[in-house]
């Protein structure tokens, strides 16, 4: 509670409203009306935390006239790119190369800082580390990857490179400690190469890394499938279960290899079992369960030599090393982490499938082709605490914020200024509803001083500026409430707290006051202790916005004639929001 509390307003997306979905499935297309306390929204309900969003995170579907949130929109990937080198990666490459950058973009396995390519010869001097570009990479190799944050270097795990480019490809051939390995491609070529014919392939299962094991297994099973006598070969034990039958295998293989190659009728017809791999060359890998080396290492290096869970999770799937069996627990087995690719995504309305957000596909542009954000359709609500000195009798000396973020005194009325800013070009009528007491264990009393008011249209700022002085004066007087009250709530002069009166009005905004009497957080003996954030005073509030819009005709091309522009339709949008006002002081 050391940090000051910042008031907030979150809005509920209708996608989480069960009553709404029920109604929709029932067939009646009415919008939900959050009226009355019968199903007042409880911001503390476990479900609520999944449906409340700050206004900036919400989208708006112009066809459904409804709010959409990150949880309910359907996303489609427009572009994949590397967040470090900002190169676009074609989606076809993704299947073959995976979802990480295969240029020279790496993150430190210890601290996730960026790794720079440095020459091993020169001592890692902090000034030198800031030398990323090739012209400045001094001298000749060998090169290492060095973290510019924690100064970790790949030489610590015995990895260095001959060239300063194509690091990803070089790393794929290097094991920690510096021993080279054969890539799957080289392995295949070597198998064909007659000069290697005589030598048996490495039989030590320790040498078999993931990639090699998979290649061996695949070759082995494909050989089995092709071999008509496979059924006679062995273990028919599990055959009846379909566990090791060629059909189930071919199904699995086609899932993981992506090809439909194995779907030949012959294989399907054969129901017999196949034998399993028997040696490393066939893909058999015996788990090494002997952990004495790891234990000895832990004894000598202590806990400092081990990798944290976060560090191990951050590692890219390592196809290069032999399977773990617990060996990747030490810092010296960590490897540089190639950057995960990032995406640009477009978003669709889940109901009508219209696109509501679409960025331009080029990586370096920040423009959007379509960007329908809720903030340009529904009023924003900002919350600020008001310091009102004096009781109700003395005209209340207004303005001046209370100490922002300070805890609220229990059982002592506090006042909050809610400012509604209208983003649309029509005047809107806002109707607020809040339960008299907040839900939850500690019921604070809530009074919305002015629950109904109108907010002027978001006219052009230039219109405003160009208005002649007389008009502006009149306008300002109107705003200050010196003349007739306008719109919904009247205007209260000189900022006095009066029921049914708004506090202040501007071009396209209105401020109203909410009075709260925070509950006491005193616990009776035997009560469970305060839960996290249970001391935060949150009030649920229903907001109904009504306005008149031009008929939503689809005649986009035809300019509406005079008579046509008369045809206006009433629109309304209702939703729940929650206002976080402050923490209640604990005694």
């Amino acid at each position, binding site marked *: 509670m050391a940090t000051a509390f910042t008031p907030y307003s979150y809005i509920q997306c209708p996608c989480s409203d069960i009553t709404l979905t029920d109604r929709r499935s029932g067939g009646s297309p009415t919008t939900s009306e959050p009226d009355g306390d019968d199903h007042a929204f409880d911001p503390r309900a476990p479900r609520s935390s999944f449906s409340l969003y700050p*206004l*900036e*995170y*919400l*989208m708006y579907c112009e066809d459904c006239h409804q709010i959409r949130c*990150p949880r309910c929109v359907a996303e489609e990937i427009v572009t994949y*790119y590397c*967040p*470090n*080198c*900002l190169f676009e990666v074609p989606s076809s490459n993704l299947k073959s190369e995976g979802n990480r950058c295969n240029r020279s973009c790496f993150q430190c396995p210890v*601290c*996730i*800082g*960026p790794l*720079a390519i440095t020459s091993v010869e020169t001592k890692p001097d902090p*000034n*030198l*580390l*800031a*030398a*990323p570009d090739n*012209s*400045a990479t*001094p001298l000749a190799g060998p090169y290492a990857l060095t*973290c*510019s*944050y*924690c100064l970790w270097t790949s030489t610590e795990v015995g990895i260095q490179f001959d060239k300063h480019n194509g690091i990803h490809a070089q790393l794929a051939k290097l094991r920690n400690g510096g021993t080279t390995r054969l890539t799957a491609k080289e392995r295949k070529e070597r198998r064909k190469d007659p000069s290697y014919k005589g030598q048996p392939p490495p039989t030590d299962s320790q040498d078999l890394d993931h990639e090699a094991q998979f290649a061996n297994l695949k070759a082995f099973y494909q050989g089995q499938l092709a071999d008509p006598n496979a059924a006679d070969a062995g273990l028919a034990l599990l055959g009846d279960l379909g566990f090791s039958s060629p059909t189930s295998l071919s199904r699995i293989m086609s899932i993981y290899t992506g090809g439909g190659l194995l779907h030949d009728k012959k294989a399907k017809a054969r129901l017999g079992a196949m034998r399993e791999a028997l040696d490393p060359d066939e893909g058999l890998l015996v788990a090494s369960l002997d952990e004495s080396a790891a234990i000895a290492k832990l004894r000598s290096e202590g806990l400092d030599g081990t990798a944290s869970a976060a560090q191990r999770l951050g590692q890219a799937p390592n196809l290069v090393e032999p399977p773990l069996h617990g060996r990747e627990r030490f810092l010296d087995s960590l490897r540089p982490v190639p950057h995960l690719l*990032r995406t640009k995504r477009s*978003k669709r309305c889940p109901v009508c499938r219209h696109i509501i*957000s679409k960025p331009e596909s080029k*990586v*370096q542009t*920040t423009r*959007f082709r379509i*960007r329908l*954000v*809720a*903030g340009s359709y529904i009023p924003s609500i*900002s919350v600020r605490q008001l310091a009102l000195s004096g009781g109700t009798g003395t005209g209340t000396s207004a303005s001046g914020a209370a100490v922002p973020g300070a805890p609220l005194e229990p059982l002592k009325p506090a006042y909050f200024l809610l*400012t509604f*800013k209208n983003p649309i070009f029509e005047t809107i009528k806002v109707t607020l509803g809040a339960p008299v007491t907040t839900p939850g264990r500690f019921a604070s009393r809530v009074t919305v001083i002015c629950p109904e008011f109108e907010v002027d249209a978001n006219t052009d700022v230039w219109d405003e500026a160009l208005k002649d002085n007389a008009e502006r004066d009149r306008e300002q007087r109107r705003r200050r409430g010196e003349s007739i009250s306008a719109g919904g709530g009247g205007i209260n002069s000189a900022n006095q707290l009066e029921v049914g009166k708004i506090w202040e009005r*501007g071009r396209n*905004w209105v*401020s109203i006051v909410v009075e709260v009497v925070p509950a006491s957080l005193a616990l009776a003996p035997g009560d469970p202790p305060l839960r996290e954030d249970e001391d935060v005073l949150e009030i649920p509030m229903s907001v109904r916005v009504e306005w008149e819009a031009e008929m939503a005709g689809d005649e986009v091309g035809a300019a509406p004639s005079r008579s046509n522009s008369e045809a206006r339709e009433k629109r309304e949008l209702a939703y729940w929001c929650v206002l976080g006002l402050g923490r209640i002081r604990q005694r």
Partner: protein
Amino acid sequence: MSSRRPPRGEYIETDTGNKVARKATLVGTQNIMLGGKTVIQPDAIIRGDLVRTIHPSSQSGGNAAPQNNTAISIGRYCFLSRNCCLRPPGRLYKGAFTYMPLRMGDHVFIGAGSVVQAASIGSHVHIGAGSVIGEFAIIKDYVRILDGTVVPPNMVIPSFSIVAGQPARVIGEVPEGGHEAFELRDLYKTVGNNPQPAPH
């Protein structure tokens, strides 16, 4: 930075609308380019004196291009809070040490006490208070860096990232509805010799 004559306020307001606090420390002003409407608060430090000493062009065939000595260029509507420090990054180039220019786009907010040594900062960037932006970091447009973040040298932060931590990591994405929040026009009006109240 010609002052528009008295009254002597806290700020010097230039013809292009820059508001530079009298108590700000600008070293090597001839190497500092301000785009206009930029606010520099008291006790901010801008090291325009750390100018590039080696020019790659000067090596190849005579002095063709006139040397550009801008050490720090700042776009429009930038806001440099109290005690922040802008410092061009430096490194060895062909065996000799040189500084390189620091470039900033428009609507860049730099929080109080932050130290910035980036190579480039895009437009619509918010850097929170007490942050450190390491040498040669590249920050693209629409990036929000939370208070107390340490961005390591050479880090590239792509557009629409929310970044925090020591070292910095991308912890989220700026939502579509959050673009307007980077605008600093309104903030610009709230400081200077005739500050306006913040609009609602």
